[in-house]
């Protein structure tokens, strides 16, 4: 287990807290001490024992690719980032060494040649900033190592 427990002030287990941590370049999940289980996205309630006394845990972002696609018909938000038919991008499900999975954009792979992409490819979490001013937001991504 490479995760380390946070000793900082306890934040609510909300998506807003998760995003706030992303802004601080931290990938944070929640941890149930009873079940010794990590959750990403962070859960407020353990789905196994229903305990609500969970703790934040920082994940080291080491992962591997569990499933993926190369997207050619993009949603509006990704079209605004310059993606689309002529510039596909990879979205995937990644499995972290800490035993949790998450959806994320995958960087560093050849999206135009998806048949060459291998499930199991080692990945590392990366924080990408999009938008300007008040719209600025940090997104979780993973990059092939």
């Amino acid at each position, binding site marked *: 287990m490479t995760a380390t427990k946070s000793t900082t002030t306890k934040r609510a287990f909300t998506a807003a807290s998760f995003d706030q941590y992303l802004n601080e370049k931290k990938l944070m999940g929640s941890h149930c001490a009873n079940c010794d289980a990590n959750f990403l996205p962070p859960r407020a309630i353990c789905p196994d024992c229903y305990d609500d006394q969970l703790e934040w845990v920082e994940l080291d972002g080491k992962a591997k690719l*569990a499933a993926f*696609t190369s997207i050619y018909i993009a949603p509006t938000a990704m079209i605004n980032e310059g993606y689309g038919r002529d510039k596909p991008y990879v979205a995937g499900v990644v499995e972290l060494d800490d035993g949790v999975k998450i959806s994320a*954009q995958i960087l560093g792979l050849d999206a135009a040649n998806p048949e060459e992409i291998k499930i199991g490819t080692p990945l590392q979490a990366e924080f990408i900033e999009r938008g300007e001013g008040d719209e600025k937001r940090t997104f979780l991504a993973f990059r092939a190592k």
Partner: protein
Amino acid sequence: MSKKKLNRGVAVVGAGMSKFGAFSDKSSRDLFVEAFQSMRKSVDKEFNPADIETIYIGNFSSDLFEAQSHTAPIMADVAGLAPRPAVRIEDACASSGVALRQGILAIASGLYDIALVGGIEKMTNLPTAEVTDTLAAAADTLFEVPAGFTFPGFYAAIASAYMHKYGMQPEHLMNVAIKNHENGALNPNAQFGVTIPDWMQGRIASAKKKGKPVPTWSDHWDYLHDARANPMIAWPLRLFDCSPITDGAVALLLVSEEIANQFTDHPIHIIGSGQASDVALHDRDDLTSIAAARLASQEAYAMAGVTADDIRVAEVHDCFTIAEIVATEDLGFFAPGDGYKAAEDQVTARDGAKPINTSGGLKSKGHPVGASGAGQAVEIFKQMRGLADERQVAGDIPLGLSHNVGGTGGTCVVHVYERRN
């Protein structure tokens, strides 16, 4: 699993639908009127709409598609059914499969004897990018959508995991599309009721007519491999792996078993109903199967006292070709990893051992998301009563099944139907 039972029997005695397609001059209420009238015509004996006691309408997002919320009472009104209670059910693409279940539960509870179940969706008012965004709202908008996932993208990711685990190739998926278009070509209500070979010939004829260079596809497989004719949407899913954007409506008449023979001598009894939920795709242990579908079908089979092998025809949720393959495994028709082989071997064809999506499925018939689940019941009703015309499956059909999925399987609802005479 504990065996859940209905307090009393429920039967479908009427089932109708609008034509599925793109209708710029029709709103969802116009389509619902068509479906309602089609349902009335399907009832064999005398039926007075005034006898309907309660209404359940499946609809995903009239809010975003038509800027119209609170749609259930409007559907009641246009059918002349106000002031009866009308409830809208939203469970993404499983909305009207769940509406059907709610109608069943309402009758089984003893509160009502006669229920109208409907499904509506009017999707083609919006440009494709906005439709994609609206459908994406059925995913987790906080943790899945920011990753850039689209609905074709989710199912493509499922396909990638399935190919990795079982050795399937993208070409295998095309068998599902070819088969469903063959079926849909025989369904007058289908949006794209044309076989893929005929579709290809249409493109060739159109090029000749316009004096453009005539394509040189050797056959429909060649056509499906052409990136211009069948462009990539989300690898490995191409255009012909995806169900279309559709307008459509459906209406079903449900009654308690005791009074079913007042409406028809051939009621279709609903003897099994199961529903389950699942976590986000990324949170699942197995990305090649939908746990909610397995659970919902097990619950439905247990209630019905039947097994997967007993089912003669099934309509399954083929929003994408890979979804049909996974569904046929989750329902227990084929072992995990065998679904794509069954499609390749024509087992799921209309004259195969396990006919799947004789209506053309969502792929060819169309996928007006909130109406699709109830639409599956229309096909089962027709097939089991021998009224499916050119696409009728041969022989007796004592048992049928419908399988309706919302999102990537966040919701799944399964029904088992029985014909007794």
